[in-house]
Each structure stands twice: as C-alpha cells, then as structure tokens.
C-alpha cells in the first residue's frame, strides 16, 4: 500500500525521466503554436477570438503535460484538463443549441471514461506499489490475478471513450460543430490521440495479457473499418475528415498495444497529426471562403481559386504518403510491424491493402474531388439559367493560408527524423513494393469506379446524415436517467410536510424497532419496580387525555385535554420527589392553555382535512412510535450503572457552589453555559416573532 498518493509540484512527479527524448512533447507544442496562429487568422474580426485562443493554449499545455506526465494522478489531471478544455472548445459557438448539445455529448462520453480511468489508475497505483509511470513501466506483475483484468477493463474504457473507438465513436463526428482550428487541433492531431498514446505508455506492462491484446485489436480493427466506410458516406467535409481520423486512430491502436508497435504508433501519430490538422485547416479555409463545406454544394460552385486547388492536391499527396512525406515512413513502419505480427500472414495484407485504398479514396473525395472538374459546374449554371450569379469569394486572413502550407512542409521535413529510425525488414522480402503497388493499383480501380458512381455514394451519404448509433448511445440514455430521476424525486420529495413527517417517523421506527427486535431479550423484560395503583390511575388519565385531544371535535376540548396531560405529568413528578419540576410543568401548562385559548379567537374555523383512513394510519404510526420510545425508556429505569456525577453534584452544591437548590445550582453554575445557550434561543425567537409581527402590521395583507 502506498501511503501518500497525492502528487507533488516537483519535477519528478510532473515529468521525471519521461520528458527526455519525447518526440510527442515537441510535436504537441509545435501543433499548438501552428493552431494558435491559424486561430488568430480564423477569428479575425470575431469576438470569439478572446474565448478560443486562451483555451487553445491551455489545451495545448495540458496535452503536452499528458504526454510527459509521470505521476499517475498528474497524468489524470492532464487527461481531465484535455476533456474539460475540449468541452469548452467544442462549445465555441455556445449561443447555438447544437453546439451546447454536442459539447455536452463529448464530455458525457469522455467524462464517463475519465472516471473509469481514474479508478483504473488508482487500482494500478495501489496494486503495483508505485504511482510513477516511469517505475511501473519497468516492473513485471503477475497478470493472472483477477484484479489486473479489472484494471485493464477500467483503463481501456477510459481509453476507447477518449479516442473515439467503437462503440464510443459517436461524439467525434458531432464535435465537428466546433470551428476548424479546434477540430483540426483537438479532434485530429491531439485529443483523440490521447487514448492511443496512453495505450503505448501502458503497453510494456500489459502486453502479455490476452485480454489487453484481444480487446484492443478487436475494437481498433472494427473502428478502422467503420471509420473508412462511414467517411465515404459523408457529404460534410469535416465529418468525413472526422471519420477518416477515427479510422486512422483505429489503425494506430491496432499497432500500439505492444512495445514492438511503439515506433509505428509514434510515427503514425506524428505523420497523421501533421497531415490531418493541415487538412482540417484547409477545410477551414474552404468553409470561410465559399461558406459551405458540403461536397455537393462545393462541386456546384463556379469558381474555385487556384491556390485552394494546389493546397488540396499537395495535402492529398501528404495524406496518401508519397515518398518523402512523413506518412510514407509511417506506412513503412506499419508494414514492417505487420510482417512481424502476423508471421507472413498475407490475408492480413490483403485487408490492409483494401483499407489503405479506401482511405485514399476518402482523401481524394475530401481534398481534391470538390474542387476539380467543370461539367457539373456548367450544368448548375445552365439549370439556374439567367439568374446565375457567381458567388463572391470571401477574403481570408493571410495567417490562415500560411499554416496548412507550413504543416505540409513540416510533414516533409519531419521525414528526416522518421527515416533515421527505419529498420525495414519488409523491403528485404519485397513486401513493401508489393504493398505499395497493390495499394495504388486498387486505388486507381476504385478511383474510376468512384468517379463513375459518385452520385450514388453521395445520395447514400445524405440518407445516413443522421446516425442511429450516437442517438441511441447518448440521447436515449440521458432521457432514461431523466425519467428515473423524476420518478424517484416525485416519490421522495413530493412537497407535503405531513408526508415527510410520516416518512421520518416510520424510518425511525424501522431503525429503532429493528434494533429492539434484534436485541429483544434485553429490551422486552418485566419491569423491575412494582407499579402502584395511584401511579396507574394517573398514567391512565394521561393516556386517555392524550387520545381525547386527538379525537375531540372541539378545539377547546382538545387544548384542555392537552392541559390535562401536562397536569398528569406534573403530578407524577411530585410522586417522584421533584417538586421544582412539577411546579414548572404546572406553570407552563397553565400558561399554554390560557395563551392557546386566547389565540383561538383570531384563528380561522376549525376544518378537518384528513380522511378517516389517514387518521387511522397516522394513529397506528404514532402509537407504534410511542411504544418504541416507551420500551427504550423502560429499559433504563433502575438500571443506572454509574452515579458519581450526580452524587458529586449533590455533595458540592452547598459547600462549593453555595446554593441550596441543586436544580438551580446546575442551571446557574454547574452548567451555566447551557443556560446561556437557552437564553440565546429565547432572544432569537423574540427577534423572529417581533420581525414577523412587524411585517403583518406594516403591510397588512399584501405580500410580494
């Protein structure tokens, strides 16, 4: 057991050795800088600039923290920060309902995952004996203990929700209501990678565990295919990009579960981060310029500027991974890894080839297709006949144009770093060449098919515009929670005082009565003392008077019977030699009866509101409650174990306290501070009453 689990604010807890040689850290900072510059241009002349840019910087810092964090709770801190800032960023256009809902949906899913992750990390820390990731990575555990399966499930839940792997991918496409800098930064380059990055961190610990391996392979693989197909059916550029992101993350997840795949995962994270954020920013430019990001609408626009075509084309080449771009090397690493993983299993290669060419089609459809070709544009012009006017193209800030170019260039430059690490074995057997040729061959084939039938594909996409899965995942669950919540609140908190009081009394009866029942041999016993006949008479009188006060129809009779109860009590006090108490009781009861009788002149007519069954029910409850208290009281009569305090009080009354009445001495000397408290109570009551009466007299009947 680890004694103190809270992280400190020192170098070792925050990063420790994990900052050294960490390409992700530099990558995140670089992308942050690019995004902030792009955002500066994107939000020119917009009031949102002051909202988005600070959040973007904060998000970038927390993401940078996440990739270097050492203490598990620092890791969790950065993890939660990314969730929170992403919530705020998705809601950038918070005046719109859609934005608010989408951002809540994202946090709904990632927040649930975050909690699961927290528990997983705590269990990991407790059971591994260390809260430091750098130490945990070096240890080996007996993974067959069931607790490790629990830990893995909890951690994986956090991971797949954050990375948008199936079945929790639904929030990612909806997060596209955010502006382009946010989508490009959070939902392609960094945030959604957090999950797979964590997988790579934990891979050394869990890679020998079948549960870990199989669940990641299954979920990541499914996500990769799902994303690739769904992207094809989207007509919204950003949503299509979101799905390709989801597909790529699936691919990265596929490689990241083992230490051997770390290189693949890292190179893909870098390469994909660069080209995908560049594509998002490019789409941002298109959206700003032509005020649409729908593929069908863009294709009907008459003029697309040459600059956009060039950028689109070059980004397309970055995406598909032509030589000398980062993704070229990433792909090489991947093939290398597959060869080792599947032991020359060529079915996997066939699948991989098909997937890759599907992705190429997707990128083509997003980055090139909307801006080329003229036939449809002319058709559109002729259909709308004379009324056709060329839409004016909005001007955009220079900073927006610069950043996609910078990212594309850095995608090329980063190859210097990536290519150094290539230890490709695949090329030795010629697989790499086969693979490349196959991918491009298939792509060409698909390309022609797509070009021929793209109307069909687009129409299908239109139908799938509203997805079934995420609605089921999110909206219905919220509604269910709401239903349960309303139901329980109506039961527990229905607004009637009488109901609450009944509930309180019944619960008390259950608890105390249960305890009495449980220990019945102690509580249910014969009274020790003999009951004298005059005591019995008085007690009977008290009980009858108490009943009378409840059943009588006259208000006055009820008060008088209550007075009788009090008188009976004071007589009992007299019997037990407590004359002071008897006197006090007598006085208060007389006063109460008199005051109540006076008050009745001002009260409205007596009305009976409760039905007979209500009364019987209440009567029964009251009797049981009285019975329970009586049993408890009976159990302590004549059973006092210690009497020192009372004896000492009696002894000290005359010599030390210099009083003659022990009750007075207790009130004014032994326990004087009690009396101080009671005086305060009376003062408060007086203040309250005075205030309330003043309101009445001042304002009469009118109340706000």
């Amino acid at each position, binding site marked *: 057991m680890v004694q103190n689990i809270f992280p400190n604010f020192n170098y070792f807890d925050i990063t420790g050795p994990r900052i050294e040689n960490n390409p992700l850290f530099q990558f995140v900072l670089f992308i942050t800088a690019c995004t902030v510059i792009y955002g500066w241009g994107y939000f020119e002349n917009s009031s949102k600039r002051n909202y988005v840019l600070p959040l973007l910087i904060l998000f970038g810092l927390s993401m940078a923290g996440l990739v270097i964090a050492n203490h598990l709770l620092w890791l969790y801190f950065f993890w939660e920060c990314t969730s929170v800032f992403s919530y705020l960023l998705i809601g950038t256009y918070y005046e719109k309902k859609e934005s608010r809902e989408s951002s809540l949906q994202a946090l709904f899913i990632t927040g649930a995952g975050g909690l699961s992750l927290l528990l997983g990390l705590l269990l990991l820390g407790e059971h591994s004996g260390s809260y430091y990731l750098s130490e945990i990575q070096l240890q080996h555990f007996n993974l067959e203990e069931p607790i490790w399966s629990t830990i893995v499930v909890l951690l994986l839940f956090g991971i797949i929700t954050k990375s948008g792997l199936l079945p929790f991918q639904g929030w990612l496409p909806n997060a596209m209501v955010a502006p382009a800098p946010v989508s490009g930064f959070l939902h392609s380059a960094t945030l959604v990678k957090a999950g797979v990055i964590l997988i790579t961190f934990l891979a050394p610990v869990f890679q020998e565990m079948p549960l870990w391996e199989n669940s990641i392979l299954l979920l990541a693989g499914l996500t990769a295919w799902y994303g690739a197909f769904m992207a094809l059916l989207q007509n919204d550029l950003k949503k299509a990009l979101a799905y390709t992101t989801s597909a790529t993350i699936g691919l990265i997840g596929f490689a990241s579960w083992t230490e051997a795949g770390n290189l693949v995962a890292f190179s893909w994270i870098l390469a994909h981060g660069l080209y995908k954020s560049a594509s998002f920013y490019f789409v941002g430019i298109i959206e700003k310029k032509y005020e649409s990001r729908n593929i069908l609408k863009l294709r009907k626009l008459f003029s697309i500027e040459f600059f956009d075509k060039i950028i689109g084309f070059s980004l397309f080449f970055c995406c598909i991974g032509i030589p000398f771009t980062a993704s070229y090397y990433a792909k090489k690493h991947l093939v290398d890894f597959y060869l080792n993983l599947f032991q020359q299993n060529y079915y996997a290669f066939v699948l991989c080839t098909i997937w890759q060419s599907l992705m190429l089609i997707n990128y083509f459809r997003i980055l090139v297709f909307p801006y080329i070709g003229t036939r449809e544009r002319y058709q559109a012009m002729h259909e709308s006949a004379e009324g056709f006017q060329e839409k004016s193209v909005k001007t955009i800030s220079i900073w927006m144009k610069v950043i996609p170019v910078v990212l594309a260039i850095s995608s090329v430059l980063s190859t210097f770093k990536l290519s150094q690490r290539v230890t490709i074995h695949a090329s030795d057997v010629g697989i790499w060449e086969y693979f490349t040729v196959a991918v491009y061959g298939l792509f060409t084939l698909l390309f022609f098919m797509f070009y021929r039938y793209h109307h069909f594909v687009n129409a299908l996409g239109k139908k799938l515009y509203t997805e079934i899965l995420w609605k089921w995942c999110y909206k219905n669950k919220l509604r269910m929670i709401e239903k349960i919540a309303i139901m329980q609140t109506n039961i527990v908190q229905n607004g009637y005082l009488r109901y609450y009081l009944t509930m309180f009394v019944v619960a008390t009866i259950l608890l105390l009565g249960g305890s009495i029942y449980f220990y019945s041999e102690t509580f249910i016993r014969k009274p020790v003392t003999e009951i004298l006949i005059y005591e019995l008479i008085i007690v009977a009188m008290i009980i009858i008077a108490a009943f009378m006060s409840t059943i009588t129809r006259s208000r006055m009779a009820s008060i008088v019977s209550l007075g009788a109860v009090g008188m009976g009590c004071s007589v009992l006090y007299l019997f037990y030699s407590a004359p002071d108490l008897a006197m006090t009781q007598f006085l208060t009861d007389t006063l109460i009866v008199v005051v109540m009788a006076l008050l009745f002149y001002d009260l409205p007519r007596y009305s009976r509101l409760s039905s007979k069954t209500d009364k019987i029910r209440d009567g029964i409850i009251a009797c049981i409650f009285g019975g329970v208290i009586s049993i408890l009281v009976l159990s*302590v009569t004549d059973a006092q174990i210690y009497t020192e305090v009372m004896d000492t009080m009696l002894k000290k009354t005359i010599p030390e306290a210099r009083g003659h009445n022990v009750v007075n001495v207790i009130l004014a000397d032994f326990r004087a501070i*009690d009396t101080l408290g009671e005086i305060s109570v009376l003062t408060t009551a007086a203040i309250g009453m005075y205030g309330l009466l003043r309101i009445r007299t001042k304002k009469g009947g009118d109340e706000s």
Partner: protein
Amino acid sequence: MLITPIICIPLFGAAITLLFYKDREVQQWTSTVVIAIHTLYTFLLTLNVFGYGSLVEYVGNWDAPIGITLIADQLSVLMLIMTSVVMLAVNIYSRIATDAKLESQGYHSVVLILLAGLSGTFVTGDLFNLYVWFEVILMSSFVLLSIKGNKEQLEGGIKYVTLNLFASLLFLCAAGLIYGLLGTLNLADLSLKVAENISDPRIHTFALMLWIAFAIKAAIFPFYSWLPSSYHTPPIAVGAIFAGLLTKVGIYSMIRVFIFVFNPLPAWIYTLLVIISIITMMSGVLGAYVQSDFRRILAFSSVSQVGFMMLGIALQNEWAMAATILFMIHHGFVKSGLFITSGICGKSVGSFYMNRLGGFLDKSPLLGILFLTLAFSLIGVPFTSGFTVKIMLLKSCIMNKEWVAIFALLVVSFMTMLYMLKIWSEVFWKKLPLDEDGKVSKSKPLETGMFIPVVIVLIFSLMIGIFGNVLSEVAIDTAKKIYDRDEYIQKVLRLNLKEGLSYTGSEK
C-alpha cells in the same frame, strides 16, 4: 488560550446589534467587525492547537465531568475555520447586496447568534450542551428562513422547523436515556463508560437513536426532505450560510458523538450506514438532475454530497474519516460560493429558473470562470478540493474492498458533472431568453464587488486541492485522534489512564 471567546464574541456582537436595532449602518459594521475578530481568534486558536496540542477549558471552573468542558482539538478548529471563513464571505456579500428589508428585521443579530451556536457546537465536549447549541442553531436558522415573511419562505420555514424539531426530540430522548444509563454527559467520560459497556445492546440502540437525530440535521436519506424544501426560499446570503454550514453540524456531531464515543458498534450498523449513504448519494444526485431552479439543484446536490461524507464515516477507517473531515470543509466553501454565484445571477435577472436565465458568460467572463472552477471543484477535477477528498474516499473504499460504494461514487461524480454543466450551459452559455412579451428581458449590471466573497471561498477551496498532500496528512492525523481517544480523554479528565479510573471530584 481561552475557548469561550469563540462563543462569546459573536454573542456580544449580537447584543450590540440588538441595541442598535433601528440603525442598519451600525449593525452592518458591528457584524463585520465581530465576524472578522471571530475569524482572527479562530486562526489564533488553530495555530495554538496545531502547535501545542488541543486546548481544554472547564467552564465555571467545574472539573469534568461535573461541569461543562469545552475542547478545541484539531477537528474543532478545522470546522471553526470553515465556519468563520464562510461567515466572513457571506457577510461581505450581504454588505454589497444590501437587502434593506432583511437587515431591518434583525438579520445581523440572528446571524451572529447562529455563529455563536455553530462555534459552540464545534467546541463543546458535553452531550447536553451540544443539544443546546443545536437548539440555538435551529431557532436562529428558522428565524433567518422566515424573516422576510413571504408565503414561500414561511412554508419552507415551517417544514424546516417541524422536521428538525423531530430531530431535537430524538436527540433529547437519546441524551436522557444515555444519561439515565451511564450517569454522565461529558463526552470523554461517556466514551470511557461506553467502552466498559460496549456489548450492551441498549448502548447500540441509543447510539442509533442519536445517529438518526444527527442524520436529520445532516440531511441523509430518508431524512433529507427538509433540505430541498427550504434551501431555495430564503435570501441568498442566508441560503449561502445554510448550504455551507448547516448540514456540516450533523456530520460533525456524528463524528464527535457517534464515532468518537460509541465505537466500535456491531458491524451490521456500519454496513447499514454504507447502504444508507449510497442511497443518499444517488437519491440526491437524481433529485438535482431534474430540477430547473438554480438553487434547488444546489440544494439537492448538497444531499448527495452529504452522502459522500456519510460514506466516509461508515467505512470505519482512517482514510475515510480523514476524507469526511476534509469533505466537510471543501463542501462548506464550494457550496456557499456556488450559492452566492446563483444569487449574483438570479438577482441580476430577477428569477432563479434556468429557462429565464442566460448569457452570463458574455456578460461577465470572470463570473463564468469562478462558477466553472467551483463547479469542477464540486465534480472533483484534479487540484481542486473536490478531487482531494474524492481520491481519499476512493482509496479508503479500495482498502475496504467496497466495490458497490466505488461504483456509486463514480456514478454520482458523473451525474454531478451532468447537472453542474447543465447549469453552465443554461445560465452561462445560452443567450438570455426573451420574456413573455417577446422582448429582451432586462438584466441589471453586475457589481464586481459581489465577486469578492466567491473569490475568498474559492481560494480556500483551491488550497485544499493544491495542498492536498499536506492537508490529507493533517486530516489523517485528526482522524487518528478520533479513533484513538486516549489523548482527548486524558486531556479532559486530567487522568493518567494507566492508573485506572478515578474521578472523585476536583483536587482543589
């Protein structure tokens, strides 16, 4: 250092404010000065207690267990700090958001009496004296609730006072029964005598009876109905005091009496309490989720948070107890801050219903940041106070292998996030909605001064989060002293336990 001033300073202040009943200016200044002195004294007391160990004072110089003993130990001073800081914040708020009607009804006097009652509760070492301070709190909070005298408030006030009187009744009965059996009321003495008779079922039952009384005060399922029906009715300043401090009294007394004196009870009682606390958490959070009134959400959220504190008590280990102690302080700060925030928003628009509120982020980004930080503190994002206490609770659950409790904790945290963000989305993000006539509703400008109290409680709350490392150790130390009673008993009864029990009066 004397302990009585902690009670007497506010009472003295109350007396002064009553002398100047008509003069609002004097009342305002008196209460601010008095609360500031009280805060100062509390900090001095804290330094003393953490420096030289707990302090004991025999009121009227009557030795324990004859007279009443006041004790300031670590738990007491931690609670006192929370109380006085919240009081100070609320006082600053009510200075700025002057409510003439409220202040002309003796508001300041009653608040000071309430402060005296709270202070008394936290320092007393006597069961009946505790009851007296409960009465002081009950009466003064009832007066504060109904002081403005409109229909809604009187209704809430009646519910509050009736259900809490039931708690007082049970408390009084239990105190009487315990005195009848054990012949003493001094907590230290009681815990010695209870320890000698710990197998007596009567003691278990009386302890349970006391627990019910405290559970009503603390608003634990099924005894919480008074809380959501009364918290949203009073003026904001009063609501903030209530939200911050009232339920803590119940939880504190549970620790001080139910755990400190009656320990260990049979295991079934603690199991029952774990179940009850889980139900409390869930019930409160579900209640909060369906509300549409800003303040009612906060009220129901208090219920679920009390469930967390109760869980810490029921788990019976030092980490859990430490978590509960810190949780009380954390919740005191955060909830009163949130209540004041709700007041700032509600006052500006004139309604607390979320479909009438909106647009506050554009109106005041600072307020948005304050609210969001407080909300995340309630949810438990790292390096806020809520995180410190939730981690401690989670860890103690893991230690006890209470998987159901862990699950409930996480689900409730999740739901807490949902309803807090619902407020954020509706009040801060959404545009200010049009009123019934289709016009843009008017909203008054916000006074920046009103943010000061929120900033104060926020700073204290964040300190719990940032210094979680240090504070958790302090809390664990405090918790250890609650389970290991020797130091307390020796201090109070001035005896050496090894020599056996002897209290034949004073040695004077």
